[in-house]
């Protein structure tokens, strides 16, 4: 019983910590950058979140917000090699959906 009291908090900490963050999917787009273009390009990032309590969410507009943020951070160039991550941070009876987009901004000659 004494050992159980010691191991229970340790086990529950590991168990709950393991579920705290969940990566659902990652997508990497193609990139046609040459070595010279790659070295000149600038890394950009856009992130958007949606808080959800008990799963009640009426839209998924936060994804579109991340997209427009990424496009605005490179207004006159092309964005290539985009990595899109969709993940969830879990909390007590609630969670936060996160979309993170990273890419390379290259200016056209």
């Amino acid at each position: 019983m004494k050992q159980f009291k010691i191991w229970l908090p340790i086990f529950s900490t590991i168990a709950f910590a393991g579920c705290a963050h969940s990566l659902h999917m990652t997508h990497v787009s193609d990139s046609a950058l040459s070595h010279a273009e790659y070295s000149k390009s600038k890394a950009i990032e856009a992130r958007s979140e949606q808080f959800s309590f008990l799963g009640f969410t009426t839209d998924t507009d936060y994804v579109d917000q991340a997209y427009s943020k990424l496009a605005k951070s490179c207004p006159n160039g092309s964005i290539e090699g985009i990595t899109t991550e969709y993940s969830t941070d879990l909390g007590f009876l609630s969670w936060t959906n996160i979309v993170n987009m990273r890419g390379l901004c290259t200016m056209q000659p």
Partner: protein
Amino acid sequence: MMRTLIYPLICLLVSSCASINSVSLTPIPPTRNAPVRAQKSRVIFLGLNFDNDFVDGVVDELRRQCPNGKVTGLLTKDETINYFLFFVYKKQVTANGYCVPNAPMNSKPKTTRVSHLDSELLGQANGSSNEAI
């Protein structure tokens, strides 16, 4: 008491809950004058769904909106919208992107000049390969 609870309960049952299944994004072009958008969905009752052909219409619709160009910068969202007690739900695929017009046909094509030395080397290479055969 019952009357007080019935309205919030109806609101909860009728309201929809949207969730994302997957998101992907292709390279975004520098010219973003012509946005294109396509959305296809299917309402599914009790999970009875026999094919996923509704998704194929997305490509056709994008092609129709950009007949003489290339569609790029495509944000594709695959989402599920749950309705009444999760017995009824909608699968929805949305694609947003940009139509980039093709380069004009009268532009000078790129040519590669082959020098006299190159052609000699090419001939030698062909000869040696023939001998090997």
